[in-house]
C-alpha cells in the first residue's frame, strides 16, 4: 500500500491505496465522487478528464499514487459552495451542449483547462483543444458554441475564480 495525500476539490484527503489503483477509481470508489465517468478506459474518450494541478488529464491513465501531493479538481468541485454553476457549466446549459450527458463532466473539465491556457480561441482552436474528448450525441456543434461563448466572456470567468 502507498500513503497518498491529495487535495481534492479543495479538501486534503489522505488514504492508503494499492499501487495499481487508478486515479479515476480513487475518485469514484474511495471518495465517492462519481461525477467523473469512465468511458473507454484506454486514454481515448476523455470522459474521465479532471484537473491535475490545474491542467486537464485523463484520470484512467494516472495512478492514484502519482497524484500524491497534487491538487485535483473534479466536476463536483467546479461550482460555487452555494451550488452556483461554474460559467462553463452555465454555458453548456445555455447552449444545450449535451444530449445524453455522459461525456459532459469530462468535456467541461477539458474546456476549463483549455480556456485557462488559451487567451484567444476561435472555432478551430476550440475544436482542436477538445480533440481529446469524444461525444457521440451532439456532433459537437453546441459544445463548441458553449466554449466559444465562454471565451468571449472572459470577464465572467475571471470573476468567478477569484
Amino acid at each position: 500500500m502507498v500513503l497518498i495525500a491529495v487535495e481534492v476539490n479543495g479538501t486534503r484527503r489522505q488514504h492508503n491505496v494499492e499501487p495499481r489503483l487508478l486515479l479515476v477509481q480513487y475518485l469514484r470508489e474511495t471518495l465517492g465522487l462519481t461525477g467523473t465517468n469512465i468511458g473507454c478506459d484506454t486514454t481515448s474518450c476523455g470522459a474521465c478528464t479532471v484537473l491535475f494541478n490545474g491542467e486537464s488529464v485523463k484520470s484512467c491513465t494516472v495512478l492514484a499514487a502519482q497524484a500524491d501531493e497534487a491538487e485535483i479538481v473534479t466536476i463536483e468541485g467546479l461550482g460555487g459552495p452555494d451550488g452556483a454553476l461554474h460559467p462553463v457549466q452555465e454555458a453548456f446549459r445555455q447552449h444545450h451542449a449535451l444530449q445524453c450527458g455522459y461525456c459532459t463532466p469530462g468535456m467541461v473539465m477539458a474546456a476549463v483547462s483549455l480556456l485557462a491556457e488559451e487567451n484567444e480561441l476561435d472555432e478551430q482552436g476550440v475544436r482542436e483543444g477538445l480533440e481529446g474528448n469524444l461525444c457521440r450525441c451532439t456532433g459537437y456543434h453546441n459544445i463548441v458554441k458553449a466554449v466559444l461563448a465562454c471565451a468571449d466572456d472572459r470577464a465572467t470567468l475571471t470573476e468567478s475564480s477569484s
Partner: protein
Amino acid sequence: MIPVAFDYLRASSTEEAIALLVEHGDEAKLIAGGHSLLPLMKLRLAIPAVLVDIGRVPGLSYIEERGDEIAIGALARHHDLETSPLLKDQVPLLAYTAHQVGDPQVRHRGTLGGTLAHGDPASDLPAAVLALGGTLVAQGPNGRREIAAIDFFRGFLETALGADELLVEIRVPKVAGAGWSFQKFNRRAQDWAIVGVAAVVNGTTGIALINMGSTPIRAVAVEEALRSGASASEAATAADQGTDPPSDINASSEYRRHLATVLVRRALEEAS
C-alpha cells in the same frame, strides 16, 4: 482494466532512481507521465514487478540553450515543448511535433524522455529527434554517457538504455531558419500516425520515418539521393527502401510503402 499488482517506489532524485534500478534489475520499470506504460500495463502487455516513479524528480524539466544546441530535461512534457518560446524559435520542428502528439490531456502528462525511452516506432517525437540528429544522455551507476539518436533505437520497444540507466537529457541542434516539415497521416485527430515523416533541411537534409518498421528510422536512401543531387520528387521515391512496415487494421505494408513516398515528397517540398 486493472494492471497486475506491483510495488511502487518513488524516487526523489536521479541517483535514487538509479540505485532502485540497480537493486531491482529487470523487474523494475521507470514511470514518469506513464502515458505509454500504463496503457500497456492495463492491457497486461507489460507486467513490471516494481514501478520506480521519477515523475517528481526535480530539475529534469528544463528547456535551455547550451551553445549550438537546445538541452531538454527528460521530464519536460509534450505540453512544455509545444508552448516553449525558445523551442518555437530555435527548433520549431520539435515544438510543432510535440503539438501533434495525442491530445491536450496526453500532452499534459507525457514526457519527451518517456516517449524516447519507450521507443515506439509509431510515436511522433522520436522521429523528430532522429531527423534533427539529436543526442541522448543516459545516466547510470557509473555516470553519464551520450548516445546519438541514430544509435538509440535498437528494436521494437527496445533502446540502447541499460536496465540500470535513466535517460536524463536530450539535446538537439539549434536550427532557427532551417526548412522543416512534419507530416502525419492518420484517420482521426488523436490517433497514432499510420505513417509519418519528420524532415529538417539545414545544409544537409535529415529525414525520419514513423511506423515504417520496428523502430523509428532515418530515410537513409532518400538522404543519399538528395546528396547525389536528386530532386525532391525523385529522392522521395526511395522513401520505403530499407524499411519493413507492418500490416495492421489501418493499412497494409504495401499501402504504408506508398504513403511513405508521398509523405516524404510533401515533407521535402514543404521544407525546401
